[in-house]
């Protein structure tokens, strides 16, 4: 940590609040919260794009990401799983690169020349898009194999955070346990929606390849992790801004079984399951619970029906929550006071009885002013204490 006065002054408030509030380790705190008990303060998770991480490090005088997370009192440490040792991802002349699924991706820059410039890795070519039969899809040469990974370092990578921190096995955004997302990458989003409406046999075929892969892969990860993984996270966006992307019936028909299998495997290894989905999924939450979910992540407050107060009241006995901080309006466009109010609202309405982890509804984006990011973390420590 840089010890110049300016950084020390900026760090003072968070350090002071933490010294007053914290009476247990990050791991103890988070385990308690997901077990529906009240710890010393609400645990904190952190999702940020790399541009914001860099800005935070500059602002608070941290010399590494590890220092930043430790200073901010972030309780959860991410584990990205085993190391990829399969065939090298092919690079193409147009700058695109294959991913795990054989989907070509390109780097797209936004906000060129502005203070919020950044990049995203976007799909540029979906290999199954123009296939018309189940046979063609079955004979796709690039279905991934759990044999493409080296699991030998998972345990030591998780163990390095113990006993202090809580370890969440979440994979990388592009190979995270899911069903619909890989289908959309492989087939294209538009074609996936058409398939869901018109081509059930193609949906089932792609889904089975995806589910079978994760059903074989995840036990190897959990086995390799020994007792050093604290929770498993999967992620599959099924919510839009104003409601689920698909009907309850459609979710039940195509995705309930896979969801259940993913949860059952984690539970067999003694792990609770966190599930990320953007958007309004209120109508689907009873199905998530029925199929084994422990913790719902995102809780996007600008989406219809995702008010944390209501969710806690309706589902808080069965489900814990992580998220609830608005990255769409309040963080990028609001004032530090708006941010504080948002944090207080979530704490007031979700902390009783445990079952709540502070977090943003997705990565804090590059258009967020630093004063709002600072206000967010200060407010976490101010309003999070039990």
């Amino acid at each position: 940590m840089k010890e110049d006065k300016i950084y020390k002054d900026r760090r003072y408030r968070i350090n002071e609040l933490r010294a007053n509030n914290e009476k247990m380790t990050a791991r103890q705190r988070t385990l308690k919260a997901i077990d529906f008990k009240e710890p010393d303060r609400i645990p904190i998770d952190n999702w940020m794009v790399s541009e914001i991480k860099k800005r935070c490090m500059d602002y608070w005088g941290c010399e590494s990401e590890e220092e930043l997370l430790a200073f901010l009192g972030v309780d959860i440490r991410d584990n990205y799983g085993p190391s990829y040792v399969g065939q090298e991802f092919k690079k193409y002349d147009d700058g695109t690169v294959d991913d795990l699924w054989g989907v070509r991706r390109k780097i797209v820059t936004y906000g060129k020349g502005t203070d919020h410039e950044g990049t995203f890795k976007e799909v540029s070519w979906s290999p199954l898009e123009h296939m018309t039969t189940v046979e063609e899809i079955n004979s796709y040469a690039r279905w991934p194999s759990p044999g493409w990974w080296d699991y030998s370092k998972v345990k030591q990578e998780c163990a390095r955070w113990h006993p202090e921190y809580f370890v969440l096995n979440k994979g990388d955004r592009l190979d995270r346990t899911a069903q619909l997302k890989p289908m959309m990458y492989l087939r294209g989003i538009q074609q996936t929606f058409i398939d869901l409406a018109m081509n059930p046999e193609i949906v089932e075929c792609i889904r089975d390849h995806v589910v079978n892969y994760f059903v074989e892969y995840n036990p190897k990860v959990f086995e390799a992790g020994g007792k050093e993984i604290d929770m498993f996270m999967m992620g599959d966006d099924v919510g839009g801004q104003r409601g689920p992307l698909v009907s309850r019936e459609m979710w039940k028909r195509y995705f309930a079984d896979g969801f259940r299998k993913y949860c059952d495997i984690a539970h067999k290894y003694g792990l609770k399951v966190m599930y990320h989905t953007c958007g309004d999924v209120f109508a689907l939450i009873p199905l998530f619970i029925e199929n084994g979910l422990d913790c719902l992540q995102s809780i996007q407050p600008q989406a219809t029906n995702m008010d944390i107060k209501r969710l806690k009241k309706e589902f808080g006995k069965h489900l814990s929550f992580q998220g609830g901080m608005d990255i769409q309006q309040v963080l990028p466009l609001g004032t530090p006071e708006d941010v504080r109010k948002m944090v207080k609202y979530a704490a007031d309405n979700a902390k009783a009885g445990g079952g709540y982890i502070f977090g943003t509804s997705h990565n804090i984006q590059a258009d967020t002013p630093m004063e709002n990011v600072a206000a967010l973390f200060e407010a976490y420590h101010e309003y999070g204490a039990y």
Partner: protein
Amino acid sequence: MSTLKQLAEYVEKGKSQEIKPLVQKLLGDNISADRIVSEGVVPGLDAIGEKFSKFECFVPELMVAALAAQEALTVLRPKMTEGTLHKSMGTIVIGTVEGDVHDVGKNIVSMMLEGAGFKVIDLGVNVPTAKFLKEVQYQEAEILALSSLYTPTRLAMKDVLQALKSQGIRDKVKVMVGGAPIDQAFCDLIGADGYAPDAPQGVKLAKRLIQAKG
């Protein structure tokens, strides 16, 4: 059932394959392209839009209906130059703003606007501000429709609005905005003329904006 009603049902149910022969038949019966759109395509899209608004159907069903309408329009589009529908409904230039390559929502909106009778010029994704300006002027568009999926990329919408102003053509075109991170407050903040939360409401908004323009 009249064949125009049949067409509306095919559009609503997303039966793309049945559409082209039926449209050809209607044209063969000397029904004008404008009438086929107004009495076949539009009621079909209105019906699915209504269901979507009431959560009786979701994105997959809306998507296939919009695509079915497109099937009809690929046949009808060249013939619509003879009619007055495009002129009375107006021209819309639409695209996803610079830095953003997401087009699923924008495509549904674009297809539904065209299905409603507007002349739609879809510029695709990652569209530079200068290109929007050029097309709005070239097409003499009544409406410019802008889409984005991310919060940082939505800021490019602001650039488009500013450029319209600095070119002195802001009052010549109505600007509507949409996409997941857009709401009425953001629309007001950047000075756009209207926001809609989904495609069916986007069509209603476009109709209102045209009326307001007079």
